[in-house]
């Protein structure tokens, strides 16, 4: 089966000269959920922003059989739903329904179809009752769910979530994990939250200094890089 995403030798340098990616190779198969782990500044977010063409570096990226280049971007952005770390940035329309319908409307479908897509997506994430509310009045967990609904409404094949559990309390994290587990799309999770990763992914890629330093089963990667050390174990080492 052909991969949903295939990245070869991806390199990227920011305008300030920082070499963020130094030759990344990556593959995502249909139905798979992969965690991207690694320290802050290791290139994870920069990497996922290349997948739908928000950033453009050297190397080759194929998404659903299409090369990531300007002429394919509308189709690719329909295939990949990117949920940003800062949900506030993603919610900019006056009401939740309008915000969730923003993506479907950009796909060129009718207003009624966009409302139907948005309503279904809000029901999927359990936020249908908030349709007429202003996004800035929602809690952090609710904002995250609405941001995910905004992506689901576009019916993507791949979900990319950047730090999805940031600023969520434990019940909201569990609720989000259950929601994501129920979604059929392939997923890429960028996170430091190991229990969250363990509940959703089998495979992990570990970013370090702009490259994928290791790939494998989550437990193996977590153990190899000491990434699962909790505060208690860390204290015992002091």
């Amino acid at each position: 089966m052909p991969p949903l995403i295939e990245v070869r030798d991806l390199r990227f340098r920011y305008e300030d000269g920082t070499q963020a990616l130094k030759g990344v190779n990556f593959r995502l198969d249909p139905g798979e959920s992969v965690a991207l782990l690694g320290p802050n500044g290791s290139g994870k977010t920069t990497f996922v922003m290349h997948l739908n063409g928000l950033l453009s570096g050297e190397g080759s990226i194929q998404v659903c059989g299409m090369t990531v280049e300007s002429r394919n971007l509308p189709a690719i952005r329909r295939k990949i739903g990117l949920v940003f770390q800062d949900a506030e940035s993603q919610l900019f329309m006056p009401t939740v329904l309008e915000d969730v319908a923003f993506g479907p409307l950009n796909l060129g479908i009718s207003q009624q179809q966009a409302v139907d897509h948005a309503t279904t997506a809000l029901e999927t994430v359990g936020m249908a009752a908030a349709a007429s509310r202003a996004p800035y009045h929602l809690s952090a967990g609710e904002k995250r769910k609405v941001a995910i609904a905004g992506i689901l409404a576009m019916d993507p094949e791949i979900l990319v979530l950047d730090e999805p559990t940031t600023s969520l309390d434990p019940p909201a994290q569990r609720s989000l994990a259950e929601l994501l587990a129920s979604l059929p799309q392939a997923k890429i999770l960028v996170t430091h939250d190991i229990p969250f990763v363990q509940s959703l992914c089998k495979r992990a890629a570990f970013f370090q200094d702009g490259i994928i330093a290791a790939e494998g089963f989550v437990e193996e990667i977590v153990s190899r890089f000491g990434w699962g050390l909790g505060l208690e174990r860390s204290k015992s080492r002091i």
Partner: protein
Amino acid sequence: MHHVVLEHWSRGSSPLHRRDPRAKFGALLVFLVVLATAHRSLPLLSVALMALLAGVLVWGRIPLLGALARATVVLPFTLVFAGVCWAAGDPARGLALLLKSYLSALAVLTVVSTTPLPLLLRGLETAGVPRFLLMVAQFLYRYLFVISEEAQHMRVAARSRGGATRDLATQPARFRAAAGALAVLFARSYARAGGIHRAMLARGFLGHFRALGSLDFRGSDAAFLVTASLAPILVRAVIERMA
């Protein structure tokens, strides 16, 4: 947050909210022309037009005092020019400048606070305003909120660390700190605005805002346009005849 007040008002459900934006634009245009071209008995005319606008705001279920207070946002700009006129020995012109600018702002505020932004922009688009200009307006509107949010976050952060915003003029160190904070505010807002733009692109934004809701110019909108256009004309005619 303060910035959501106008947004909240615009989502009301009064008869004025239900009017087609194009009918409101037409009435607003007539009001502004009537006001801008008025010379005789301007103070009395201003009071009458203010009463007219106040009635419209009450009809639109907009908090009157809040709207009157927000319209004063233009005064710092016009006060400068009014002061120049006063100093040049023409206080009547200065007063006219103040009255006209305030009433104009209040009239615009009346339309903006009773029309959701997406419909407002769509109404302008169908009225022939260039799409690019409207896109700039939409971004400006959104990013003003971004700057406002960032400023509020920084203010809270400064206060929590013992910073204060009072007596800046008498405390040069604090004034310098505030100036530095202003630079940081714009840098942070720029970064945040970039994040919003990326989020829009990620959801298929191709440079044209599509929003829910459609425009439908009905008989009641035409009636509103005629009535709301005639009202300031009649008020001015009556007052000028009395003078």
